[in-house]
């Protein structure tokens, strides 16, 4: 069984929001109609987005770090939003595990948002239906596009390749390897929703040098820094004199 998902590398994300704008651009232009914006140039702009980049400060100044945290629907393997839907408008596709809303069946009761612990769904105040990330289901299977373009819009837009896309049930896929080898984790594991999307943690690359790596095994005097020091004017030889 296939479970398509995003893996987001927090170590690489710089918080540029290119994924946010690219997502909005693609998904507001599709056949499902626009993602509404209200008051876009006013004091309190608001609108429907599938993807947002949030920013957190970890620690206290001066020992603090900024974390940029892209957040969209996690396409849970056991999505709590689906069984509560009274109309069946919310559903999880068997063939690829994408959680979708049928905008023509949704009655706008918002019960699914109550059942989602992640706040991943946003109500469209003009269409009066619930909307959410589709994992660009209208891109990834579109054979009129070049194969390299058949990825979610956010993935294509990311300038640092912080977003990986693939099947997390295929152990050889890029996303499965990233989760396995780089410590991929799920959000709020305590609710047993088994989110398909995973995050790769912030990690620091540290260079560890042992003492024996500083000393040369082939040092003829066996003591570093004790080579003969010929006078500055005299001729010297590499590996034999101190300079």
């Amino acid at each position: 069984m296939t479970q398509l998902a995003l893996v987001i590398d927090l170590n690489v994300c710089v918080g540029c929001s290119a994924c946010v704008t690219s997502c909005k651009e693609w998904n507001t232009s599709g056949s499902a109609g626009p993602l509404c914006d209200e008051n876009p140039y006013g004091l309190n702009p608001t609108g429907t987005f599938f993807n947002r980049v949030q920013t957190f400060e970890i620690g206290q100044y001066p020992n603090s770090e900024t974390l940029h945290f892209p957040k969209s629907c996690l396409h849970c393997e056991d999505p709590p939003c689906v069984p509560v839907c009274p109309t069946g408008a919310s559903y999880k596709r068997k063939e690829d595990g994408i959680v979708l809303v049928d905008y023509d069946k949704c009655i706008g009761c918002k019960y699914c948002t109550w059942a989602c612990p992640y706040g991943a769904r946003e109500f469209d105040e003009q269409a009066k239906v619930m909307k959410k990330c589709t994992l660009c289901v209208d891109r990834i299977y579109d054979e009129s596009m070049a194969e390299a373009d058949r990825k979610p819009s956010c993935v294509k837009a990311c300038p640092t390749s912080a977003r990986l896309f693939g099947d997390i049930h295929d152990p050889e896929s890029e996303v499965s390897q990233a989760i396995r080898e780089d410590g991929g984790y799920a959000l709020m594991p305590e609710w047993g929703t088994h989110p398909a999307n995973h995050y790769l943690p912030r990690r620091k690359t540290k260079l560890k040098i042992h003492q024996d790596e500083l000393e040369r095994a082939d040092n003829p005097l066996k003591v570093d820094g004790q080579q003969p020091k010929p006078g500055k004017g005299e001729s010297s030889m590499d590996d034999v004199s101190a300079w």
Partner: protein
Amino acid sequence: MKPAFSVIFLTTLIGAAQGLFLALFTHQSYALFGLLPMQSDAFYGYGSVLALLLLVGGLIASFFHLGRPERAWRSATKWRTSWLSREVIVLPAFMGVVFLFGLSHLTGYRPEVVSLPGGLIVDLSTVLGVIGTMLAFALFICTAMIYACLRFLREWHSPLTVINYILMGGASGFVLAAFYSASAAPDQADFFAGWAIIITMLAFAGRWASLVRNARLKPKSTLQTAIGIKHPHIVQRSMGAMGGTFNTREFFHGKSAAFMRAIKPAFLILTFVLPLALLALGILTPGLLALAFIIQYLGLLAERWFFFAQANHPQNLYYQTIG
């Protein structure tokens, strides 16, 4: 959560209607066994009309909750998994039975269905009453389970939610029945007022228990589990929106802590303490029963507001700072 007035009116109005129907049929059952004098058909019939009016009011209120009310019929399809869908089926079914129960009394069409040994005659209205009673309880369970089934809204995820919906709906229905009978069948008012006192006291205990339980809850989700970073000091600097979003509008009640502190004793007094006092006095002065129902209904509106506002959704962890 942000309390939606459509849902507050829906749950309180149909709760009172269910309670009223249960009260009427309880009386009819007592009378069937000769424990109370059987009242006229008009008493049960017009009582059912009153219950039906409340149910229609609740149903109308519920439509204001929908973004696309014209598609509401679709919501009956997923009854296998969704308590909301089950409620959508049980509510009209209950309304239908209340209508038929009232009709059976008002037209006097009560053919004998079965005659029990000992000369007890079970007529059509009794059969409808039994079906209606089962549907009334089913509707209480469906309504409450809509909230109680959401496991991460921990203030709601408790059997007390179901118990309290039954008890509070029952209490307001019996208080209304006491008021109704004070004008329609004054000699029966004590029966309804007595039960109203008992159920209101039970509801008081149940609601108090849920307040105690909720005060002790510790959140399971934290900012640490929400973003998966182990650090004791994490502060959100931006939620990724320059203004509010659906997530800030739907899940925060937007009232001050002082307001929340004030509304709790207010609804306890209005829903339980004052009606209990008025019911006790009302046994002597029936006029107070009307006041008891109105005050308790206002209290229930406040109670339901608090019920929604108190539920702290884990998604709020992601939406703390606009910027």
